[in-house]
Protein backbone atom coordinates (compact mmCIF):
# COMPACT_ATOMS: atom_id res chain seq x y z
CA UNK A 1 0.00 0.00 0.00
CA UNK A 2 2.86 2.37 0.79
CA UNK A 3 4.32 1.95 -2.68
CA UNK A 4 0.90 2.62 -4.17
CA UNK A 5 0.55 5.82 -2.14
CA UNK A 6 4.08 6.97 -3.06
CA UNK A 7 3.64 6.22 -6.74
CA UNK A 8 0.29 7.97 -6.85
CA UNK A 9 1.64 11.09 -5.20
CA UNK A 10 4.58 11.05 -7.63
CA UNK A 11 2.30 11.29 -10.65
CA UNK A 12 -0.23 13.65 -9.08
CA UNK A 13 2.19 16.29 -7.84
CA UNK A 14 3.83 16.65 -11.25
CA UNK A 15 0.61 17.64 -13.01
CA UNK A 16 0.10 21.27 -13.92
CA UNK A 17 -3.69 21.13 -13.69
CA UNK A 18 -3.40 19.95 -10.09
CA UNK A 19 -0.95 22.73 -9.23
CA UNK A 20 -3.15 25.36 -10.88
CA UNK A 21 -6.23 24.27 -8.94
CA UNK A 22 -4.46 23.89 -5.61
CA UNK A 23 -2.81 27.31 -5.89
CA UNK A 24 -5.47 29.01 -8.01
CA UNK A 25 -8.42 28.62 -5.65
CA UNK A 26 -6.69 30.31 -2.69
CA UNK A 27 -5.38 33.00 -5.07
CA UNK A 28 -8.92 33.74 -6.28
CA UNK A 29 -10.15 33.77 -2.69
CA UNK A 30 -7.48 36.31 -1.75
CA UNK A 31 -8.43 38.54 -4.68
CA UNK A 32 -12.14 38.34 -3.81
CA UNK A 33 -11.35 39.12 -0.17
CA UNK A 34 -9.14 42.09 -1.04
CA UNK A 35 -11.72 43.50 -3.43
CA UNK A 36 -14.42 43.27 -0.73
CA UNK A 37 -12.21 44.55 2.07
CA UNK A 38 -11.04 47.59 0.12
CA UNK A 39 -14.64 48.46 -0.83
CA UNK A 40 -15.87 47.99 2.74
CA UNK A 41 -13.22 50.34 4.06
CA UNK A 42 -14.46 53.09 1.78
CA UNK A 43 -18.09 52.94 2.89
CA UNK A 44 -20.05 56.08 3.78
CA UNK A 45 -23.77 56.86 3.59
CA UNK A 46 -24.52 59.05 0.59
CA UNK A 47 -26.51 62.20 1.27
CA UNK A 48 -27.94 64.72 -1.13
CA UNK A 49 -27.68 68.34 -0.16
CA UNK A 50 -27.24 69.62 3.41
CA UNK A 51 -28.47 67.40 6.22
CA UNK A 52 -30.56 69.38 8.67
CA UNK A 53 -28.83 69.67 12.07
CA UNK A 54 -31.58 67.74 13.86
CA UNK A 55 -30.73 64.65 11.76
CA UNK A 56 -26.93 64.81 12.33
CA UNK A 57 -27.08 62.41 15.28
CA UNK A 58 -29.28 59.96 13.31
CA UNK A 59 -26.93 60.19 10.32
CA UNK A 60 -23.91 59.53 12.54
CA UNK A 61 -25.61 56.47 14.07
CA UNK A 62 -26.56 55.22 10.61
CA UNK A 63 -23.00 55.77 9.35
CA UNK A 64 -21.55 53.92 12.34
CA UNK A 65 -24.01 51.03 11.94
CA UNK A 66 -23.34 50.64 8.24
CA UNK A 67 -19.56 50.94 8.69
CA UNK A 68 -19.68 48.23 11.37
CA UNK A 69 -21.95 46.11 9.18
CA UNK A 70 -19.79 46.28 6.06
CA UNK A 71 -16.58 45.79 8.04
CA UNK A 72 -18.04 42.77 9.86
CA UNK A 73 -17.10 40.16 7.20
CA UNK A 74 -13.45 41.22 7.46
CA UNK A 75 -13.10 40.71 11.21
CA UNK A 76 -11.77 37.45 12.59
CA UNK A 77 -13.36 34.86 12.80
CA UNK A 78 -16.11 35.98 10.44
CA UNK A 79 -13.30 36.59 7.89
CA UNK A 80 -12.92 32.82 7.57
CA UNK A 81 -16.49 32.58 6.31
CA UNK A 82 -15.87 35.52 3.98
CA UNK A 83 -12.91 33.79 2.37
CA UNK A 84 -14.89 30.55 2.09
CA UNK A 85 -17.86 32.35 0.54
CA UNK A 86 -15.54 33.90 -2.03
CA UNK A 87 -14.13 30.51 -2.92
CA UNK A 88 -17.14 28.18 -2.56
CA UNK A 89 -17.95 28.13 -6.26
CA UNK A 90 -14.32 27.69 -7.29
CA UNK A 91 -13.79 25.04 -4.63
CA UNK A 92 -16.75 23.00 -5.90
CA UNK A 93 -15.73 23.39 -9.56
CA UNK A 94 -12.05 22.81 -8.74
CA UNK A 95 -12.81 19.69 -6.69
CA UNK A 96 -14.96 18.28 -9.47
CA UNK A 97 -12.23 19.04 -12.01
CA UNK A 98 -9.57 17.43 -9.82
CA UNK A 99 -11.57 14.21 -9.53
CA UNK A 100 -12.60 14.14 -13.18
CA UNK A 101 -9.09 14.91 -14.41
CA UNK A 102 -7.20 12.59 -12.08
CA UNK A 103 -9.47 9.69 -12.97
CA UNK A 104 -10.45 10.47 -16.56
CA UNK A 105 -6.92 11.05 -17.84
CA UNK A 106 -5.86 7.58 -16.72
CA UNK A 107 -8.24 6.31 -19.39
CA UNK A 108 -7.37 8.97 -21.98
CA UNK A 109 -3.66 8.18 -21.72
CA UNK A 110 -4.34 4.46 -21.40
CA UNK A 111 -2.23 4.38 -18.25
CA UNK A 112 -5.02 2.69 -16.31
CA UNK A 113 -3.99 -0.46 -18.20
CA UNK A 114 -0.41 -0.34 -16.93
CA UNK A 115 -1.63 0.41 -13.42
CA UNK A 116 -3.99 -2.57 -13.47
CA UNK A 117 -1.28 -4.82 -14.88
CA UNK A 118 0.90 -4.04 -11.88
CA UNK A 119 -1.89 -3.66 -9.35
CA UNK A 120 -4.75 -5.89 -10.46
CA UNK A 121 -6.56 -4.99 -7.25
CA UNK A 122 -8.29 -1.98 -8.77
CA UNK A 123 -9.90 -1.01 -5.48
CA UNK A 124 -6.51 -0.28 -3.94
CA UNK A 125 -5.62 2.10 -6.75
CA UNK A 126 -8.97 3.83 -6.49
CA UNK A 127 -8.84 4.08 -2.69
CA UNK A 128 -5.41 5.71 -2.84
CA UNK A 129 -6.52 8.05 -5.61
CA UNK A 130 -9.55 9.01 -3.51
CA UNK A 131 -7.32 9.63 -0.52
CA UNK A 132 -5.14 12.00 -2.56
CA UNK A 133 -8.09 13.83 -4.09
CA UNK A 134 -9.58 14.20 -0.61
CA UNK A 135 -6.21 15.30 0.74
CA UNK A 136 -5.82 17.95 -1.94
CA UNK A 137 -9.34 19.31 -1.41
CA UNK A 138 -8.87 19.36 2.36
CA UNK A 139 -5.48 21.03 1.86
CA UNK A 140 -7.06 23.76 -0.24
CA UNK A 141 -9.82 24.17 2.34
CA UNK A 142 -7.30 24.36 5.17
CA UNK A 143 -5.43 27.03 3.20
CA UNK A 144 -8.68 28.98 2.79
CA UNK A 145 -9.42 28.76 6.51
CA UNK A 146 -5.86 29.85 7.31
CA UNK A 147 -6.17 32.74 4.87
CA UNK A 148 -9.45 33.73 6.48
CA UNK A 149 -7.73 33.79 9.86
CA UNK A 150 -4.65 35.68 8.66
CA UNK A 151 -5.99 38.19 6.16
CA UNK A 152 -7.69 40.48 8.74
CA UNK A 153 -4.25 41.06 10.23
CA UNK A 154 -2.85 41.99 6.82
CA UNK A 155 -5.79 44.02 5.47
CA UNK A 156 -7.37 45.80 8.38
CA UNK A 157 -10.89 47.09 7.89
CA UNK A 158 -11.86 49.37 10.78
CA UNK A 159 -15.31 48.37 12.06
CA UNK A 160 -15.66 51.52 14.14
CA UNK A 161 -17.98 50.93 17.09
CA UNK A 162 -19.29 47.31 17.02
CA UNK A 163 -22.11 48.34 19.36
CA UNK A 164 -23.48 50.44 16.52
CA UNK A 165 -24.66 47.20 14.91
CA UNK A 166 -27.55 47.32 17.34
CA UNK A 167 -28.96 50.17 15.27
CA UNK A 168 -29.26 48.00 12.16
CA UNK A 169 -32.80 47.66 10.95
CA UNK A 170 -33.34 45.09 8.17
CA UNK A 171 -36.86 46.42 7.78
CA UNK A 172 -35.40 49.72 6.63
CA UNK A 173 -33.78 47.97 3.70
CA UNK A 174 -30.23 48.92 4.68
CA UNK A 175 -28.96 45.38 4.99
CA UNK A 176 -29.97 42.01 3.47
CA UNK A 177 -32.92 40.35 5.19
CA UNK A 178 -31.95 37.75 7.71
CA UNK A 179 -28.52 39.13 8.54
CA UNK A 180 -27.87 38.96 12.25
CA UNK A 181 -24.29 39.69 13.15
CA UNK A 182 -20.92 38.28 14.03
CA UNK A 183 -20.09 34.59 14.11
CA UNK A 184 -18.00 32.55 16.51
CA UNK A 185 -14.91 30.55 15.51
CA UNK A 186 -16.99 27.40 15.92
CA UNK A 187 -19.64 28.82 13.62
CA UNK A 188 -17.02 29.67 10.99
CA UNK A 189 -15.61 26.16 11.16
CA UNK A 190 -19.13 24.73 10.85
CA UNK A 191 -19.53 26.66 7.59
CA UNK A 192 -16.09 25.35 6.50
CA UNK A 193 -17.31 21.83 7.21
CA UNK A 194 -20.28 22.32 4.87
CA UNK A 195 -17.81 23.46 2.19
CA UNK A 196 -16.06 20.11 2.65
CA UNK A 197 -19.35 18.28 2.16
CA UNK A 198 -20.17 20.32 -0.96
CA UNK A 199 -16.70 19.65 -2.39
CA UNK A 200 -17.04 15.96 -1.53
CA UNK A 201 -20.30 15.79 -3.44
CA UNK A 202 -18.66 17.50 -6.44
CA UNK A 203 -15.77 15.02 -6.27
CA UNK A 204 -18.12 12.05 -5.96
CA UNK A 205 -20.33 13.04 -8.89
CA UNK A 206 -17.58 14.15 -11.28
CA UNK A 207 -15.36 11.20 -10.37
CA UNK A 208 -18.16 8.72 -10.96
CA UNK A 209 -18.97 10.25 -14.36
CA UNK A 210 -15.26 10.29 -15.30
CA UNK A 211 -14.92 6.61 -14.38
CA UNK A 212 -18.11 5.61 -16.13
CA UNK A 213 -17.46 7.58 -19.31
CA UNK A 214 -13.64 7.21 -19.18
CA UNK A 215 -12.96 10.89 -19.79
CA UNK A 216 -12.20 13.96 -17.70
CA UNK A 217 -14.26 16.30 -19.86
CA UNK A 218 -17.26 13.97 -19.91
CA UNK A 219 -16.91 13.58 -16.16
CA UNK A 220 -17.26 17.32 -15.65
CA UNK A 221 -20.06 17.59 -18.17
CA UNK A 222 -21.92 14.60 -16.74
CA UNK A 223 -21.75 15.97 -13.21
CA UNK A 224 -22.87 19.43 -14.36
CA UNK A 225 -25.78 18.05 -16.35
CA UNK A 226 -26.86 15.89 -13.41
CA UNK A 227 -26.91 18.86 -11.02
CA UNK A 228 -28.92 21.04 -13.42
CA UNK A 229 -31.31 18.23 -14.34
CA UNK A 230 -31.89 17.31 -10.71
CA UNK A 231 -32.64 20.93 -9.88
CA UNK A 232 -35.24 21.13 -12.64
CA UNK A 233 -36.89 17.84 -11.66
CA UNK A 234 -36.97 18.87 -7.99
CA UNK A 235 -38.55 22.24 -8.85
CA UNK A 236 -41.19 20.52 -10.99
CA UNK A 237 -41.98 17.99 -8.28
CA UNK A 238 -42.24 20.62 -5.58
CA UNK A 239 -44.79 22.55 -7.62
CA UNK A 240 -46.82 19.48 -8.61
CA UNK A 241 -46.81 16.73 -6.02
CA UNK A 242 -48.66 16.55 -2.73
CA UNK A 243 -49.06 14.18 0.19
CA UNK A 244 -46.15 11.93 1.09
CA UNK A 245 -44.70 12.38 -2.40
CA UNK A 246 -43.57 15.83 -1.23
CA UNK A 247 -40.75 14.08 0.58
CA UNK A 248 -39.24 12.73 -2.63
CA UNK A 249 -37.63 15.99 -3.81
CA UNK A 250 -36.29 16.40 -0.29
CA UNK A 251 -34.15 13.33 -0.88
CA UNK A 252 -32.30 14.91 -3.81
CA UNK A 253 -28.61 15.66 -3.43
CA UNK A 254 -28.72 19.30 -4.48
CA UNK A 255 -31.69 20.08 -2.24
CA UNK A 256 -30.03 18.51 0.74
CA UNK A 257 -26.72 20.24 0.13
CA UNK A 258 -28.37 23.64 -0.27
CA UNK A 259 -30.34 23.08 2.91
CA UNK A 260 -27.28 21.80 4.78
CA UNK A 261 -25.29 24.90 3.88
CA UNK A 262 -28.15 27.23 4.78
CA UNK A 263 -28.77 25.43 8.09
CA UNK A 264 -25.08 25.69 8.94
CA UNK A 265 -25.09 29.41 8.14
CA UNK A 266 -28.08 29.86 10.39
CA UNK A 267 -26.48 27.84 13.17
CA UNK A 268 -23.29 29.87 12.79
CA UNK A 269 -25.26 33.09 13.21
CA UNK A 270 -24.70 34.35 9.68
CA UNK A 271 -28.40 34.54 8.91
CA UNK A 272 -31.71 34.04 10.62
CA UNK A 273 -33.32 32.44 7.57
CA UNK A 274 -31.90 28.90 7.50
CA UNK A 275 -32.47 26.24 4.92
CA UNK A 276 -36.25 26.08 4.66
CA UNK A 277 -37.55 28.18 1.78
CA UNK A 278 -41.19 29.16 1.66
CA UNK A 279 -42.12 27.30 -1.54
CA UNK A 280 -45.51 25.58 -1.28
CA UNK A 281 -44.11 22.09 -1.86
CA UNK A 282 -41.38 22.40 0.75
CA UNK A 283 -41.29 19.96 3.63
CA UNK A 284 -38.76 20.62 6.35
CA UNK A 285 -36.64 17.73 7.54
CA UNK A 286 -34.76 17.83 10.84
CA UNK A 287 -31.08 18.81 10.16
CA UNK A 288 -29.70 15.44 11.39
CA UNK A 289 -32.00 13.62 8.96
CA UNK A 290 -30.87 15.95 6.16
CA UNK A 291 -27.23 15.34 7.03
CA UNK A 292 -27.83 11.58 7.10
CA UNK A 293 -29.36 11.71 3.62
CA UNK A 294 -26.27 13.57 2.33
CA UNK A 295 -24.06 10.95 3.98
CA UNK A 296 -26.01 8.16 2.26
CA UNK A 297 -25.65 9.96 -1.08
CA UNK A 298 -21.89 10.35 -0.67
CA UNK A 299 -21.39 6.79 0.51
CA UNK A 300 -23.45 5.53 -2.41
CA UNK A 301 -21.63 7.60 -5.02
CA UNK A 302 -18.18 6.65 -3.74
CA UNK A 303 -19.21 2.98 -3.52
CA UNK A 304 -20.26 3.22 -7.17
CA UNK A 305 -16.73 4.39 -8.05
CA UNK A 306 -15.42 1.03 -6.90
CA UNK A 307 -18.21 -0.96 -8.52
CA UNK A 308 -17.70 0.79 -11.87
CA UNK A 309 -13.92 0.37 -11.94
CA UNK A 310 -13.97 -3.21 -10.69
CA UNK A 311 -16.47 -4.20 -13.37
CA UNK A 312 -14.87 -2.15 -16.14
CA UNK A 313 -13.28 -3.80 -19.11
CA UNK A 314 -10.00 -2.07 -19.80
CA UNK A 315 -9.85 -1.44 -23.54
CA UNK A 316 -7.28 1.32 -23.18
Amino acid at each position, binding site marked *: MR*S*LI*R*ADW*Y*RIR*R*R*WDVRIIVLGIPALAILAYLEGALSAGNFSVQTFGDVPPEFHAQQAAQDAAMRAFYAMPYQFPRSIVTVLEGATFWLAIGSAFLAASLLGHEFA*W*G*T*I*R*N*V*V*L*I*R*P*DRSGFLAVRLIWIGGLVLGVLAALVALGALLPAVVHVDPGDPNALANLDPNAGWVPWGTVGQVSLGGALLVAATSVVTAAAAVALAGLCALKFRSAMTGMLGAGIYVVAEGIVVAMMMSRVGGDLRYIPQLSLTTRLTTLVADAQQAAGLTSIGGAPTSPGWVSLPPPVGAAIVAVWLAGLFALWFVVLR*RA*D*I*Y*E
Partner: protein
Amino acid sequence: MDAAIEIRGLVRHFGPIPAVDGINLYVPAGSVYGFLGPNGSGKTTTIRLLLGLLRPDRGTVRLMGGSPHDAACLSRVGALVERPALYPYLSARENLLLFATLGGLSGGEANRAIDGALGAVGLQAVARRKAGGFSTGMLQRLSIALALLREPELVILDEPTNGLDPAGVVDVRALITELARSGRTVFLSTHVLTEVEQLCDRVAVLQRGRLVADGLTRELLERGQWLAIDFDTEEESVRAAVALREAGIGAERAGDRETGLRVTLDGPGPSAINKLLAERDLHPAELAVRRASLESVFLDLTDGV
Protein backbone atom coordinates in the same frame (compact mmCIF):
# COMPACT_ATOMS: atom_id res chain seq x y z
CA MET B 1 6.96 -28.76 -19.98
CA ASP B 2 5.35 -26.13 -17.71
CA ALA B 3 2.84 -23.79 -19.28
CA ALA B 4 3.58 -20.07 -19.29
CA ILE B 5 0.09 -19.47 -20.64
CA GLU B 6 -2.82 -21.87 -20.50
CA ILE B 7 -6.15 -20.86 -21.96
CA ARG B 8 -9.18 -23.15 -21.90
CA GLY B 9 -12.46 -22.54 -23.68
CA LEU B 10 -12.06 -18.78 -23.72
CA VAL B 11 -15.09 -16.92 -25.03
CA ARG B 12 -15.79 -13.22 -25.18
CA HIS B 13 -18.56 -11.49 -27.09
CA PHE B 14 -18.91 -7.82 -27.94
CA GLY B 15 -22.66 -7.59 -28.29
CA PRO B 16 -23.76 -10.57 -30.37
CA ILE B 17 -20.38 -10.85 -32.10
CA PRO B 18 -17.91 -13.40 -30.71
CA ALA B 19 -14.54 -11.65 -30.63
CA VAL B 20 -12.93 -14.71 -29.07
CA ASP B 21 -14.76 -17.95 -29.65
CA GLY B 22 -13.66 -20.93 -27.62
CA ILE B 23 -9.89 -20.61 -27.74
CA ASN B 24 -7.68 -23.26 -26.15
CA LEU B 25 -4.01 -22.38 -26.05
CA TYR B 26 -0.97 -23.84 -24.37
CA VAL B 27 2.22 -21.82 -24.45
CA PRO B 28 5.18 -23.79 -23.06
CA ALA B 29 7.58 -21.96 -20.78
CA GLY B 30 10.73 -20.89 -22.59
CA SER B 31 9.18 -20.79 -26.04
CA VAL B 32 8.83 -17.90 -28.44
CA TYR B 33 5.21 -18.19 -29.40
CA GLY B 34 3.83 -16.40 -32.42
CA PHE B 35 0.21 -15.34 -32.29
CA LEU B 36 -0.91 -14.65 -35.82
CA GLY B 37 -4.09 -13.40 -37.32
CA PRO B 38 -5.44 -10.79 -39.66
CA ASN B 39 -6.68 -7.44 -38.33
CA GLY B 40 -9.82 -7.90 -36.26
CA SER B 41 -9.27 -11.62 -35.76
CA GLY B 42 -9.27 -11.24 -31.96
CA LYS B 43 -5.55 -11.21 -31.14
CA THR B 44 -5.58 -8.11 -28.94
CA THR B 45 -8.85 -9.13 -27.28
CA THR B 46 -7.29 -12.49 -26.43
CA ILE B 47 -4.25 -10.74 -24.95
CA ARG B 48 -6.46 -8.41 -22.91
CA LEU B 49 -8.42 -11.43 -21.65
CA LEU B 50 -5.33 -13.33 -20.68
CA LEU B 51 -3.98 -10.29 -18.81
CA GLY B 52 -7.24 -9.84 -16.91
CA LEU B 53 -8.01 -6.49 -18.55
CA LEU B 54 -11.23 -7.87 -20.01
CA ARG B 55 -13.57 -10.30 -18.32
CA PRO B 56 -14.30 -13.49 -20.29
CA ASP B 57 -17.85 -14.66 -20.86
CA ARG B 58 -16.57 -18.20 -20.39
CA GLY B 59 -13.30 -20.02 -20.02
CA THR B 60 -10.21 -19.84 -17.85
CA VAL B 61 -6.77 -18.30 -18.15
CA ARG B 62 -3.64 -19.30 -16.24
CA LEU B 63 -0.54 -17.14 -16.45
CA MET B 64 2.65 -18.69 -15.08
CA GLY B 65 0.41 -21.12 -13.25
CA GLY B 66 -1.61 -18.39 -11.53
CA SER B 67 -4.53 -16.09 -12.04
CA PRO B 68 -4.15 -12.91 -14.07
CA HIS B 69 -5.88 -11.14 -11.18
CA ASP B 70 -3.09 -12.06 -8.80
CA ALA B 71 -0.42 -9.35 -8.35
CA ALA B 72 2.30 -11.88 -7.56
CA CYS B 73 1.53 -13.72 -10.77
CA LEU B 74 1.45 -10.52 -12.83
CA SER B 75 4.81 -9.46 -11.37
CA ARG B 76 6.32 -12.30 -13.45
CA VAL B 77 4.71 -10.96 -16.61
CA GLY B 78 5.62 -7.94 -18.72
CA ALA B 79 3.24 -6.78 -21.40
CA LEU B 80 3.03 -4.34 -24.25
CA VAL B 81 -0.59 -4.18 -25.36
CA GLU B 82 -1.34 -2.35 -28.58
CA ARG B 83 -0.77 1.40 -28.28
CA PRO B 84 1.71 2.89 -25.81
CA ALA B 85 0.17 4.06 -22.52
CA LEU B 86 2.43 6.50 -20.69
CA TYR B 87 2.22 9.77 -18.78
CA PRO B 88 3.07 12.50 -21.31
CA TYR B 89 4.15 15.02 -18.65
CA LEU B 90 6.75 12.67 -17.18
CA SER B 91 10.12 11.89 -18.73
CA ALA B 92 10.96 8.42 -19.98
CA ARG B 93 12.89 7.73 -16.81
CA GLU B 94 10.17 9.15 -14.57
CA ASN B 95 7.54 7.01 -16.27
CA LEU B 96 9.61 3.92 -15.56
CA LEU B 97 10.37 5.08 -12.02
CA LEU B 98 6.67 5.56 -11.37
CA PHE B 99 5.78 2.05 -12.47
CA ALA B 100 8.83 0.61 -10.71
CA THR B 101 7.64 2.25 -7.49
CA LEU B 102 4.12 0.99 -8.11
CA GLY B 103 5.58 -2.49 -8.51
CA GLY B 104 7.36 -2.22 -5.17
CA LEU B 105 10.87 -1.43 -6.42
CA SER B 106 12.71 1.44 -4.80
CA GLY B 107 16.11 3.10 -4.53
CA GLY B 108 19.06 1.38 -6.18
CA GLU B 109 16.96 -1.62 -7.18
CA ALA B 110 14.58 0.60 -9.14
CA ASN B 111 17.43 2.57 -10.75
CA ARG B 112 19.18 -0.61 -11.86
CA ALA B 113 15.95 -1.95 -13.36
CA ILE B 114 15.30 1.36 -15.14
CA ASP B 115 18.85 1.57 -16.53
CA GLY B 116 18.62 -2.00 -17.76
CA ALA B 117 15.24 -1.48 -19.44
CA LEU B 118 16.26 1.81 -21.06
CA GLY B 119 19.50 0.23 -22.25
CA ALA B 120 17.66 -2.72 -23.76
CA VAL B 121 15.59 -0.44 -25.98
CA GLY B 122 18.30 2.16 -26.65
CA LEU B 123 16.61 5.12 -24.97
CA GLN B 124 19.32 6.13 -22.47
CA ALA B 125 20.14 9.31 -24.41
CA VAL B 126 16.57 10.64 -24.18
CA ALA B 127 15.77 9.28 -20.73
CA ARG B 128 15.18 12.76 -19.33
CA ARG B 129 12.96 13.98 -22.15
CA LYS B 130 9.22 14.12 -21.58
CA ALA B 131 7.32 11.21 -23.12
CA GLY B 132 4.77 13.66 -24.55
CA GLY B 133 7.42 14.81 -27.03
CA PHE B 134 8.39 11.32 -28.17
CA SER B 135 7.83 9.99 -31.68
CA THR B 136 5.62 6.92 -32.16
CA GLY B 137 8.68 4.71 -32.45
CA MET B 138 10.25 6.12 -29.27
CA LEU B 139 6.99 5.62 -27.38
CA GLN B 140 6.90 2.05 -28.63
CA ARG B 141 10.45 1.48 -27.38
CA LEU B 142 9.59 3.03 -24.02
CA SER B 143 6.56 0.76 -23.75
CA ILE B 144 8.78 -2.24 -24.41
CA ALA B 145 11.14 -0.96 -21.71
CA LEU B 146 8.17 -0.79 -19.36
CA ALA B 147 7.26 -4.37 -20.21
CA LEU B 148 10.81 -5.48 -19.39
CA LEU B 149 11.16 -3.32 -16.26
CA ARG B 150 10.52 -6.03 -13.70
CA GLU B 151 12.59 -8.63 -15.55
CA PRO B 152 9.55 -10.77 -16.32
CA GLU B 153 9.67 -14.48 -17.05
CA LEU B 154 6.86 -14.09 -19.58
CA VAL B 155 6.89 -11.19 -22.03
CA ILE B 156 3.69 -10.52 -23.98
CA LEU B 157 4.25 -8.25 -26.95
CA ASP B 158 1.33 -7.07 -29.06
CA GLU B 159 2.59 -5.71 -32.39
CA PRO B 160 5.91 -4.58 -30.89
CA THR B 161 7.37 -3.31 -34.16
CA ASN B 162 4.43 -1.02 -34.93
CA GLY B 163 5.65 2.48 -35.68
CA LEU B 164 9.32 1.55 -35.60
CA ASP B 165 11.76 2.48 -38.34
CA PRO B 166 13.70 -0.36 -40.03
CA ALA B 167 16.59 -0.05 -37.59
CA GLY B 168 14.11 -0.15 -34.72
CA VAL B 169 12.47 -3.27 -36.14
CA VAL B 170 15.86 -5.00 -36.34
CA ASP B 171 16.65 -3.91 -32.76
CA VAL B 172 13.36 -5.25 -31.41
CA ARG B 173 13.81 -8.56 -33.21
CA ALA B 174 17.30 -8.83 -31.75
CA LEU B 175 15.84 -8.04 -28.33
CA ILE B 176 13.24 -10.79 -28.68
CA THR B 177 15.98 -13.24 -29.70
CA GLU B 178 17.98 -12.16 -26.65
CA LEU B 179 14.95 -12.61 -24.38
CA ALA B 180 14.45 -16.11 -25.74
CA ARG B 181 18.14 -16.89 -25.30
CA SER B 182 17.89 -15.86 -21.64
CA GLY B 183 15.16 -18.47 -21.15
CA ARG B 184 12.15 -16.19 -21.06
CA THR B 185 8.87 -17.01 -22.70
CA VAL B 186 7.86 -14.54 -25.39
CA PHE B 187 4.28 -14.38 -26.62
CA LEU B 188 4.43 -12.36 -29.80
CA SER B 189 1.24 -11.15 -31.41
CA THR B 190 1.82 -9.79 -34.88
CA HIS B 191 0.69 -9.81 -38.44
CA VAL B 192 4.27 -9.45 -39.71
CA LEU B 193 4.79 -13.01 -40.91
CA THR B 194 8.54 -12.74 -41.45
CA GLU B 195 8.83 -11.80 -37.79
CA VAL B 196 7.14 -15.05 -36.76
CA GLU B 197 9.11 -17.09 -39.26
CA GLN B 198 12.39 -15.67 -37.98
CA LEU B 199 11.67 -15.61 -34.26
CA CYS B 200 9.01 -18.08 -33.21
CA ASP B 201 9.40 -21.76 -32.55
CA ARG B 202 5.68 -22.16 -32.08
CA VAL B 203 2.75 -20.42 -33.67
CA ALA B 204 -1.01 -20.15 -33.41
CA VAL B 205 -3.20 -18.66 -36.11
CA LEU B 206 -6.41 -16.92 -35.17
CA GLN B 207 -9.25 -16.28 -37.58
CA ARG B 208 -12.54 -14.63 -36.60
CA GLY B 209 -11.94 -15.42 -32.93
CA ARG B 210 -11.13 -19.08 -33.50
CA LEU B 211 -7.80 -20.87 -33.60
CA VAL B 212 -7.31 -22.36 -37.05
CA ALA B 213 -3.78 -23.66 -36.46
CA ASP B 214 -1.57 -24.23 -33.45
CA GLY B 215 1.76 -25.96 -33.20
CA LEU B 216 5.43 -25.86 -34.10
CA THR B 217 6.26 -23.26 -36.73
CA ARG B 218 8.31 -25.90 -38.59
CA GLU B 219 5.30 -28.23 -38.74
CA LEU B 220 3.03 -25.46 -39.95
CA LEU B 221 5.45 -24.67 -42.74
CA GLU B 222 5.74 -28.37 -43.62
CA ARG B 223 2.00 -28.43 -44.14
CA GLY B 224 2.54 -26.24 -47.16
CA GLN B 225 5.39 -28.31 -48.66
CA TRP B 226 5.06 -29.69 -52.19
CA LEU B 227 7.20 -31.52 -54.67
CA ALA B 228 8.24 -29.73 -57.86
CA ILE B 229 8.98 -32.18 -60.70
CA ASP B 230 10.24 -31.04 -64.07
CA PHE B 231 10.56 -33.22 -67.18
CA ASP B 232 12.33 -32.68 -70.46
CA THR B 233 9.09 -32.97 -72.46
CA GLU B 234 5.43 -32.21 -71.99
CA GLU B 235 4.55 -35.77 -73.00
CA GLU B 236 6.55 -37.13 -70.02
CA SER B 237 4.89 -34.65 -67.75
CA VAL B 238 1.38 -35.74 -68.82
CA ARG B 239 2.26 -39.43 -68.43
CA ALA B 240 3.70 -38.77 -64.97
CA ALA B 241 0.58 -36.92 -63.87
CA VAL B 242 -1.61 -39.84 -64.94
CA ALA B 243 0.67 -42.35 -63.20
CA LEU B 244 0.69 -40.39 -59.96
CA ARG B 245 -3.08 -39.92 -59.95
CA GLU B 246 -3.53 -43.66 -60.52
CA ALA B 247 -1.36 -44.20 -57.42
CA GLY B 248 -3.62 -41.83 -55.45
CA ILE B 249 -1.13 -38.95 -55.36
CA GLY B 250 -2.35 -35.43 -56.14
CA ALA B 251 -0.49 -33.88 -59.06
CA GLU B 252 -1.22 -30.86 -61.18
CA ARG B 253 0.54 -28.73 -63.74
CA ALA B 254 2.92 -26.28 -62.05
CA GLY B 255 1.85 -22.82 -63.17
CA ASP B 256 2.60 -22.00 -66.82
CA ARG B 257 5.26 -24.64 -67.24
CA GLU B 258 4.05 -27.36 -69.61
CA THR B 259 6.81 -29.71 -68.49
CA GLY B 260 6.42 -29.11 -64.75
CA LEU B 261 4.27 -30.83 -62.11
CA ARG B 262 3.31 -29.79 -58.60
CA VAL B 263 2.81 -32.83 -56.37
CA THR B 264 1.15 -32.74 -52.96
CA LEU B 265 3.31 -34.19 -50.18
CA ASP B 266 0.64 -35.55 -47.87
CA GLY B 267 1.26 -39.17 -48.85
CA PRO B 268 4.43 -40.88 -50.11
CA GLY B 269 7.69 -38.96 -49.76
CA PRO B 270 9.92 -37.68 -52.60
CA SER B 271 11.99 -40.89 -52.87
CA ALA B 272 8.87 -43.12 -53.13
CA ILE B 273 7.46 -40.85 -55.82
CA ASN B 274 10.76 -40.91 -57.72
CA LYS B 275 10.81 -44.72 -57.52
CA LEU B 276 7.20 -44.93 -58.78
CA LEU B 277 8.07 -42.72 -61.76
CA ALA B 278 11.25 -44.68 -62.55
CA GLU B 279 9.23 -47.93 -62.60
CA ARG B 280 7.20 -46.34 -65.43
CA ASP B 281 10.36 -45.24 -67.21
CA LEU B 282 9.80 -41.62 -66.33
CA HIS B 283 12.97 -39.79 -65.36
CA PRO B 284 12.54 -36.22 -64.05
CA ALA B 285 15.03 -33.58 -65.14
CA GLU B 286 14.56 -31.98 -61.73
CA LEU B 287 12.83 -33.07 -58.56
CA ALA B 288 12.84 -30.75 -55.54
CA VAL B 289 10.89 -30.22 -52.32
CA ARG B 290 9.54 -26.67 -52.24
CA ARG B 291 8.75 -25.10 -48.89
CA ALA B 292 5.78 -22.75 -48.73
CA SER B 293 6.27 -19.37 -47.11
CA LEU B 294 4.45 -18.69 -43.87
CA GLU B 295 2.61 -16.05 -45.81
CA SER B 296 1.06 -18.56 -48.18
CA VAL B 297 0.24 -20.93 -45.31
CA PHE B 298 -1.29 -18.04 -43.39
CA LEU B 299 -3.35 -16.89 -46.34
CA ASP B 300 -4.46 -20.43 -46.94
CA LEU B 301 -5.53 -20.84 -43.30
CA THR B 302 -7.30 -17.52 -43.12
CA ASP B 303 -9.03 -17.78 -46.50
CA GLY B 304 -6.92 -14.96 -47.85
CA VAL B 305 -8.46 -12.43 -45.45
